Structure formats: structure tokens, C-alpha cells
């Protein structure tokens, strides 16, 4: 079981738990504001852009080259950026904090 904290653009904290799937789907299923996941998780829309807390970067890991190319042209992307449709949920990411990027 992984506990994941989302911080929305209104500075609201949403804490969710899950065992499997990807982080975007978890957020969409629970109506987390600012995560649209339009493309359903195939890395073509960038509507699930989050900033990973610095302490959690190792847990979450790096973007693949396709994801990094996408992020390169996303507004306000930085070294903490990930598309959360590409973050798989497992015990390894328990406790991570993700701040949702403004669209």
C-alpha cells in the first residue's frame, strides 16, 4: 500500500492510498483538481504534470526519454517535473508528495 499526497494549486492537500495502477489514474478517479489525464496515460497530453518533492526524487525515479521530451516543452517544467501517468504505484513510492503544476 502506498500513501500519496497531492498538493493542488489552491494549496489544498489530498492524501490517497492505492496498491497498483498509475498515479494519474488514482488522481482522476478521486477527482483531484488539476490532474486531467486527457490521453488516458499514454504520454501524449501533459495534463498530469506534477512536481515531485525533492526528498522523494529517488523514490519516484527519472522520466524516460519520451516523457522528458514531452516535459521539455511543457510550461514551467523543471528538474522536479514528472508526468504522473508514468509513475506506477507500488510500496516503493509510499509517502511521496506531488505538487500539481498549473495548466
Amino acid at each position, binding site marked *: 500500500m502506498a500513501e500519496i499526497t497531492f498538493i493542488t494549486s489552491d494549496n489544498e492537500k489530498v492524501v490517497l492510498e492505492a496498491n497498483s495502477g498509475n498515479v494519474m489514474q488514482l488522481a482522476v478517479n478521486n477527482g483531484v483538481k488539476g490532474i*486531467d489525464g*486527457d*490521453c*488516458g*496515460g*499514454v*504520454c*501524449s*497530453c501533459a495534463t498530469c504534470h506534477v512536481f515531485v518533492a525533492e526528498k522523494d526524487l529517488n523514490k519516484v525515479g527519472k522520466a*524516460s526519454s*519520451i*516523457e522528458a*521530451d*514531452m516535459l521539455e*516543452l511543457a510550461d514551467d517544467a523543471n528538474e522536479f517535473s514528472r508526468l504522473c501517468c508514468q509513475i506506477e504505484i507500488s510500496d516503493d513510492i509510499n509517502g511521496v508528495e506531488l505538487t500539481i503544476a498549473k495548466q
Partner: protein
Amino acid sequence: MKSEFPDPFEEARQDSGLGHMDDQNDPVAMILRHKDVRKTAHNWKTYQSGAIPGRIVVPSEVNIRDIRQIPFEVDPPLHKDFRNLLEEWFKRPNKEVYQEKLTHQISTLIDDVLKKDTTDVVTDFALKLQSRALTLLLNTPYIESETFISWGTHVFRSEGDNLDASKANVLYDYLDKKINEARENIGEDLYSVLLQAEVNGKKLTHDEIKGIMILTFAGGRDTVINAVTNTIAYFAEHPESLLDIQKNPDKINRAVEELIRYFSPLTHMGRVVTEDAQICEHAIKNDTRVSLCWASANRDETVFENPNEVNFDRKMNPHVAFGFSHHNCLGATHARQVMRILLKLLANKITSISILKSRENIEELGEFRRKIGFHELIAKFTN
């Protein structure tokens, strides 16, 4: 195979990265590589959308309209203000109640074609599906779809594919009437929402509202019709894929993205160059036109493995069929729901589709000829 859509850009994409076409004496340099397309789409300062109305469209509509389509022909920062106004409305297709209504519409349509001996998928299925679904997007009465259906498959083009100002006027007159009616009697449709809205503290003008509505009508017309028709052709020739979806409905999202990548219902979209520039080492002159060739980018072999194969198991699919960056398709949420619901219902209701006759729709793009869909696709649906 009728459902095969060849990639006419492969050689030019690999050799030079650019293609060329003339268009009413305003030539277009077509950008063919995935990376160049995305970078150019992102760079709105050098490659603008806010040129003379109609110039970024290929073929150019400069000679048939003066009205600006919004937010499509507006650059940042004003573009963002209009997008912010429209975004929430155009995300309504994600709501359950919207999807229920769409499911009912498409389900009824499939039941209708199942009763027929033959169906022209273009006019008797895709056009009807698109027109009826549009009433949901606009939140207008269902009966309006009969008018949309009567206009035929392209709001701007006549039968011979030539640009036709008189046909555009049919839409413009309709929109004038509807906006004026809504002004007299504010309701809950998109016209009424726009009449009450403000951008930067100012009410929208009649022409601004009209510009938004024209985009909504035109942008989602032949694109959706082609996506739906081509999908039917695909499943007619790949019944095993339909069975696969029936057994694994969790594949629907990926299948939809893959079909849209493969068909790329909008071949390309133009930009006007505002300063001398370079794209993949080719000089691009100020005040000329380039186009972002989504269809070519979506077959770029440096990004997609086996790009000419339809593969529902593609996990990463960074296609640009809905455009890219700030001008990405406003109607994409609606289009995706149309396609997802269509696939789900086809998988549950249909066992086979036989194509009896077809006539391909081929676009002439200078040195390229691209199959975009069908003028006619006569089929028999069986449950």
C-alpha cells in the same frame, strides 16, 4: 486493405525533414519530423496563429472569410484568456451524465444500422453520430442535429472539395440567428454562456462569439467524421481487434489513442512566420507559411516503433494528432469520449462488419497524396 492508411511523407521526412506545397500562391513548407513539429508548435512568437484570418489554414481560407476563429487564430497572452473561458465547458465530456447521453445516442445509431441491409458509413453513420454528439457539446436541443446533418460532410467545402464561400455562409447565417435568439432568451447552451461571459473585463462581441462557434463547428466536423468512418473500416478488416477489446475493455483508451495516431484526422495546420528562421537546417523566410504536419510526425520512426502498424498495446504514444502545446485541440475531450464510447459499443453489439463498396478520399498536398478517409464506405453491420 481498405483500412490501410499509407504514410506518404516517409522519404521526405527522412531525407530533408520538409515538404513543399503551393496553396493559392501562398506556398507552405510542411514540417515533417516529430521533434521539429513539437518545437515549432511551442514557439508561438516566431510561428504565429494570429495572422490574417484564414491564412494558417491549409488550404487557405483568406478569400472566403474575414472572421477570426477563436482561440485558434489568437496568440498568447490573449489566447490564454479565451482558453480559460472555454476550458471548463469543453471538459464537460468527462462528466458521467454527458457520457450517458452520448452512449444512448451512439447505441441507438448502432441499433439503427444493424436493422439495415447496407449503410453508407460516411453519411448514414459518422455524419449522424458527429452531428448528434455536437448537440451535447453545445447543449442545444437534439433536433438541431437534423440541420447539421443536412449540411453534408464539410461545412466549408462543396462536393468537389473546392473552397466554397456560399456553403460557409449557410453556417454563418445559422450562427447569427442562434446567437441573436440566445440574446433574446438566455438559456444554458454555449451561445448563452458566451453571451454572458467576459474576457479581460469586457463582454464578447457578436463576431467573437461567432468566431468561437465557427471553430467549434468546423474543427470537429470532418475530423470526427473521418475518425469514426476509418475506425469502422479498421474493425471491418480486423475483427480480432474488436474481439480483443470486448475481452479486455481496459484497452479502450490505448486503442483510441492509437487509432487517432494512425488516422491523424487533421493532416496539418499552418503558422505564419514572423522573422527569418531555421527549421532542421532549412532557411524559413519571414512572412511565409509553414505547416505542422501532425500526420507525418505521428509516423516518425525515430519516435514510434513500427509506425505503420496499428498496435493497441503501445504503452507510450506521444502522438500529436490533437496538435501540441497551447493550441492543442479544444474539442479533444469530446472527440476522445466519442471514440471511447464508440469502441465500447461496437465491441459489445457487433460481431462483424463487411465492406461492400468504398471510395477513398485522397488529399492533394503538393508533392504528396494522402488518404484521409472515404467519400463513401458502404458496409453491412451484423450482430
